[in-house]
């Protein structure tokens, strides 16, 4: 039997609905409907200029599995992530551990390392496009020439182009993870570390047997957030290499943009969006289950 609500409770419920109404309507129209639409579009032969040209069944999906360029972009996205994530994690963790113990100097590092994080990705990418100029024109190659190294034409040679965008991206977001890890390092239980020291554990042992396991929840969280961020990379690529040379830095989001707004294949672009959605969904499920485990440990 439904519970009877008092007048006061009804009033509160009504206010509650009114308060969430704007957010929920916006959510419905701008998040839920477009999400459903990528699935709908993926079954349509839809073009940017001609609109919907009819139901096409699984055609787009068939095209997807036989599209070499799609698998290249998927591979490039994974290569990009495999470059960004370990580099970012190792550097930021090392810096946080190294600087965490020292008070002096840490403040200035905290400030400067965070500058790129608040700067727009576009500004950062534009500057690095110049820093990575080939020959001896670019400052990076100019500096390398002091050591007798002839730098490559970074953004126009296969392999080097990918490395350039990876480095640019790592430097842009490093500060965020350094600060997160600094917080985690500061919150390490001192009594446990002390107990380890008294038991005669040397520094490497202390790190691998005590600090690292205690930091694991934060490391996993940061890792998954960084992976999701790398899967979404667009501006760095668009501005520095424009997917080139020869498509060697073409990533998933760039391919969606390319298919939808350069070659007007909306239906196919939506199909690639479905792939991106599934990737992000899986990563998010992992993230949420990790967080539940992490908070379980905290209790």
């Amino acid at each position, binding site marked *: 039997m439904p519970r009877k609500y008092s007048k006061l409770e009804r009033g509160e419920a009504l206010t509650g609905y009114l*308060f969430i109404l704007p957010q929920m309507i916006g959510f419905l129209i701008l998040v839920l409907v477009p*999400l459903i639409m990528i699935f709908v579009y993926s079954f349509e032969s839809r073009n940017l200029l001609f609109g919907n040209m009819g139901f096409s069944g699984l055609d787009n999906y068939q095209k997807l599995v036989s599209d070499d360029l799609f698998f290249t972009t998927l591979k490039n996205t994974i290569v990009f992530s495999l470059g960004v994530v370990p580099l970012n994690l190792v550097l930021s963790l090392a810096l946080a551990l190294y600087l965490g113990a020292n008070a002096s100097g840490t403040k200035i*590092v905290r400030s400067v390392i965070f500058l790129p994080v608040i700067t727009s990705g576009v500004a950062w990418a534009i500057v690095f496009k*110049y820093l990575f100029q080939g020959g001896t024109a670019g400052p990076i190659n100019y500096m390398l020439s002091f050591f007798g190294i002839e730098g490559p034409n970074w953004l126009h040679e296969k392999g080097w182009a990918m490395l350039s965008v990876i480095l640019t991206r790592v430097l842009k977001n490093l500060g965020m993870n350094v600060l997160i890890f600094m917080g985690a390092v500061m919150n390490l239980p001192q009594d446990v570390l002390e107990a380890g020291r008294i038991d005669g554990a040397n520094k490497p042992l202390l790190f691998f047997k005590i600090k690292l396991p205690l930091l694991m929840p934060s490391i996993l969280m940061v890792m998954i957030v960084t992976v999701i961020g790398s899967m979404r990379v667009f501006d760095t690529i668009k501005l520095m290499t424009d997917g080139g040379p020869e498509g060697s830095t073409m990533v998933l989001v760039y391919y969606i943009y390319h298919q939808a707004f350069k070659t007007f294949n909306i239906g196919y672009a939506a199909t690639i969006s479905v792939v991106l959605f599934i990737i992000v969904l899986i990563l998010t499920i992992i993230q949420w289950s990790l967080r539940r485990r992490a908070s379980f440990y905290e209790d």
Partner: protein
Amino acid sequence: MKTNKLIYNIVYYIVIALIVVVFVYPFWWMATNSLNNINEIFGRPTLLPKSWMWSNYVEIFQVQPFARQYMNTIAVALLGTLGNVLIASLSGYAFARLRFPGRSALFILLLTALMMPIEVTIVPMYFMMNDIGANDTLVPLILIPIFCSQGAFSAFMLRQHFITVPKELEEAARLDGLRPTGIFFRIMLPISVPVLSSAAILAFLSVWNMYLEPLIFVSSVEKYTLPLALSNFNDTYGLPQWNLQMAATTLSVIPVMVFYLIFQNKISNAMVTSGMK
């Protein structure tokens, strides 16, 4: 033992200096080259501009409607931030404190927006905006930060905050005869200014820096926002005007940088919280 300590200190300061150089040099390079002649950009890098061409900063306003684009960005960022915080604080409060059937289910539904990157849904969104005639206007750029993942994030953040506000405060207000709306506007909002400002900072930065959205939704130059405008400094032959691009980039970065230097801890703490969402 003493020399060990000395070496340790030297290494420490070298590491610090290296980090400072790596992270400051790109900005330094940007600023100095914004004052160079276009032929002076490449080749031997110098610490200071070679010809101090302040005219670059005049020219960027002539080759593009840069003042207009700057105003667009300010307008979009302010409206987007205001809408984001207002709507998220209403729903955040309701989800935290008001009891109504379906509350937790609706909240979990809203959380799915948190994980939904704009890149996934941008293609259908283009058609939706087209249908309501919002393409090539600033409307999508304002709506997206209010309702998409940034909006859901603010709602989430504010809900977590409102949960921690002591219930006695509301009880007292209720006994004084305030209704939920009055409690929200007269009590809850004023005491939540620190959290509201954190949410506002995050929303503002995300709008100020957004690139994909204006690239998709805006086509006429006088409706560009800054990041899109920056990527568009080419002469009539399509060759990049490097020095002008650097001047424009410097002008776009300066306000954020000044803001950051003033409210450093507040901003980095807010960002770190959001980084762990």
